[in-house]
């Protein structure tokens, strides 16, 4: 069956857009979550809409699932291939089609890198605001699939707030225009629904993003604290003072030391926590806000408050934060990155509990935190070559995510569910909610061929895992047989 399918693919598509040999497939066996690996049946790298349509048509005819892939930097296994499926790489859809300064938008193909959009718009003094840490590599199509965030989303929003329109190929080859360069499209807001749908609803083949005027000035303040609780309280006080920082990030001591060793950002390595607070806007406004923020930070017990002296130092301070994941990668053979979001008021409690869990599981945890919006990235350090450590790391991670849900948060703030958090999703959603998600999927993709098995766990999986969302004392999934 697969041989016949591949033979048909070869007939329908030029040789250079098709990979079928194991050694050619190898680079596609995983995305940024390398703990999961799988070779697909084939990889297709179409250069045109026609070729993409031809691929989808054959997949439909042969009932072969399709996994769309951007730059492969995703952290939840969303682009993990399926053994019986095709990986559809959008890497060759890599052109910036239009920059329209008067309407402040850019029309680009999905394989364009996030940072390339801001670079192309820079001569016009415009930029694309969402800046995930992987922005030098990650693609805008992948950003749409994951609803990617970044370190500036408290003020400027997530991908969903910065995308105006999409061109989407449905599984049956229909090309849909979703959204417009004009506000408030008629009918249901399918643009919001597509954003963050992890490749399960349609294939994004063009993206129109909003561009913003580059702020006149950005200034970064670094504050050191003797406890993470004090740093957390300082965050609430900044927001409470009516200040909306462009970015507000927290790192704990282990992350500070790892980042400092890696990029020599000049971080205070003996601090229990640091806050990075960026203010941007008009020159005078930034000066006023910097003074206000410094006051708030000192009142909140900061042991040291430093302003970046120049642009080079500002970028250096950010480099430490943006390089936190690889920095932790240098001090541990493996690490497992969590992505829960919590209401900020529970930060101290959640961090204290993570500390206890770390002791209990005997694994170190480094915390980096998008403090402004409550998105927590605990990095669990382990060594996969040591018997049982990976399983312990995963169990610790699951406990952390359950904790996030318990305090009113979510299992994933920006990395997506993918394959990684399918079990955790069982603790966040009840049977009716999961069934609703599957019904929405079926509205777009009735045969279930787009990235099946990702993002939304099946009801059976949740029942089998026994990780159930119990609400009101009632056991969910009573209708399902137990195993």
């Amino acid at each position, binding site marked *: 069956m697969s041989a016949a399918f591949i033979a048909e693919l070869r007939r329908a598509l030029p040789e250079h857009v098709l990979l079928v040999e194991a050694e050619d497939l190898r680079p596609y066996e995983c995305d940024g979550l390398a703990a999961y690996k799988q070779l697909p049946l084939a990889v297709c790298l179409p250069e045109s809409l026609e070729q993409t349509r031809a691929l989808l048509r054959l997949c439909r005819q042969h009932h072969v699932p399709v996994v769309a892939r951007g730059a492969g930097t995703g952290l939840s296994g969303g682009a993990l291939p399926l053994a019986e499926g095709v990986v559809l790489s959008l890497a060759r859809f890599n052109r910036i089609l239009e920059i329209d300064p008067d309407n402040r938008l850019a029309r680009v193909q999905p394989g364009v890198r996030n940072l390339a959009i801001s670079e192309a718009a820079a001569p016009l003094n415009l930029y694309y605001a969402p800046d995930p840490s992987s922005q030098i590599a990650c693609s805008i199509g992948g950003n749409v699939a994951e609803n990617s965030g970044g370190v500036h989303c408290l003020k400027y929003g997530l991908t969903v707030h910065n995308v105006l329109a999409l061109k989407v190929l449905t599984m049956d080859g229909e090309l*849909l225009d979703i959204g417009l360069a004009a506000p*408030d499209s008629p009918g249901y807001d399918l643009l919001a629904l597509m954003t963050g749908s992890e490749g399960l609803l349609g294939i994004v083949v063009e993206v129109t993003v909003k561009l913003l005027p580059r702020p006149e000035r950005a200034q970064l303040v670094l504050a050191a604290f003797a406890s993470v609780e004090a740093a957390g309280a300082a965050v609430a006080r900044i927001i409470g003072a009516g200040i909306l920082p462009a970015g507000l990030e927290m790192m704990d001591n282990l992350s500070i030391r790892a980042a400092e060793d890696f990029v020599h950002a000049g971080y205070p390595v003996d601090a229990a926590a640091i806050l990075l607070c960026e203010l941007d806007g008009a020159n005078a406004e930034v000066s006023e806000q910097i003074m206000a923020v410094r006051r708030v930070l000192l009142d909140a017990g900061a042991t040291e408050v430093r302003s970046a002296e120049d642009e080079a130092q500002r970028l250096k301070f950010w480099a430490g934060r943006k390089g936190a994941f690889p920095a932790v990668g240098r001090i541990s053979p493996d690490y497992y990155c969590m992505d829960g*979001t919590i209401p900020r008021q529970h930060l101290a409690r959640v961090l204290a509990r993570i500390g206890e869990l770390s002791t209990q599981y005997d694994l170190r945890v480094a915390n980096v935190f998008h403090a402004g919006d409550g998105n927590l990235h605990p990095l669990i350090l382990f060594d996969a070559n040591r018997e049982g450590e990976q399983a312990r790391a995963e169990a610790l991670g699951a406990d952390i995510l359950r904790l996030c849900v318990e305090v009113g*948060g979510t299992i994933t703030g920006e990395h997506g569910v993918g394959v990684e958090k399918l079990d955790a999703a069982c603790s966040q*959603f009840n049977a009716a909610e999961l069934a609703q998600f599957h019904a929405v999927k079926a509205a777009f993709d009735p045969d279930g061929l787009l990235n099946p098995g990702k993002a939304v766990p099946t009801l059976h999986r949740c029942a089998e895992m026994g990780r159930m969302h119990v609400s009101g004392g009632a056991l969910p999934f009573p209708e399902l047989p137990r195993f």
Partner: protein
Amino acid sequence: MERELIERVQQAVAEKRPLCIRGGATKAFYGRHCVGELLELSGHRGIVAYEPSELVITVRAGTPLAEVDTVLAEHGQMFPFEPPRFGAEATVGGMVAAGLSGPRRPWGGAVRDAVLGVRLLNGRGEVLRLGGQVMKNVAGYDLARLMAGALGTLGVLLEVSLKVLPRPVEERTLAFELDAAEAARRVIDWGRQPLPLSATLYAEGRLQVRLSGGGQCLATARAALGGEEVGNAIWPSLREQDLPFFQTGAPLWRIALPPAAPDLHLPGETLVEWGGALRWLRGEAVAERVHQRAALLGGHATLFKGGDANAEVFQPMPPAMRALQRRVKQALDPLGIFNPGRIYAEL
């Protein structure tokens, strides 16, 4: 109250009886007529959670918008999308369902941008918790935002969680006497610069812009822009459509366009907001012509008020999109119980 709502919906589902959901009925003019039994939400009120430093508020759908605005203002905060009320009875649920944003929309975002989560009663009579109370949440499909502008056709909103923002320290309004072309040119030019703009209005030869921000920054921007300083009273009147422009009985079109789109060239009077992206047209233009022109300019048109609410009022959609929208409706409300035909005849 919630128990009662759930039972009413479950009964309607069992008997396949359509329901027309009503909050304060202040936006009943918007969209198409609904035929069905009334389901009143205005008794389902109250703020469920509000911690100002979290920048999130959770309220029951029937809570009066005016009440919530007051509470937010007491804490120096606001809904960033500056929602119109169109009457004292307006509810937060109705605000989300209508999805209408006010003058700050291009800079502060739309209603949908602020929606973080909802508790929804779907067309199977189930209560679903979609999204949450946190700013970043990518677990599950974003069905919460889908409720903004759905005019109640996908389910009954029980509770909504919305992002709020600090109120600007200060606001100032500048006025300029300009012809339409020059006003459009300036607004586009200003939009490309990092200026603290938060609203624009052009009508009858007069451009007014609002600046919002910290003290020194406003003074600098004010000096750069020139013009004559006038009061801020115009903006609530614009938001609530209390200006004389909106007060005639003539049909009122709401035409959304890319901001730099050229003039509409349609018969009638126009008023331009949102840095050029929203053009109100008052007059007896032919519907087909308006839709054609809006589509040609890359936007869409809605017969907002004063038209025939039994006919179509929103921009027609291509067949494939219509079919998909219909399937999305069926996924949430398989029997078509909620507000049938409120958006399009088939939605």
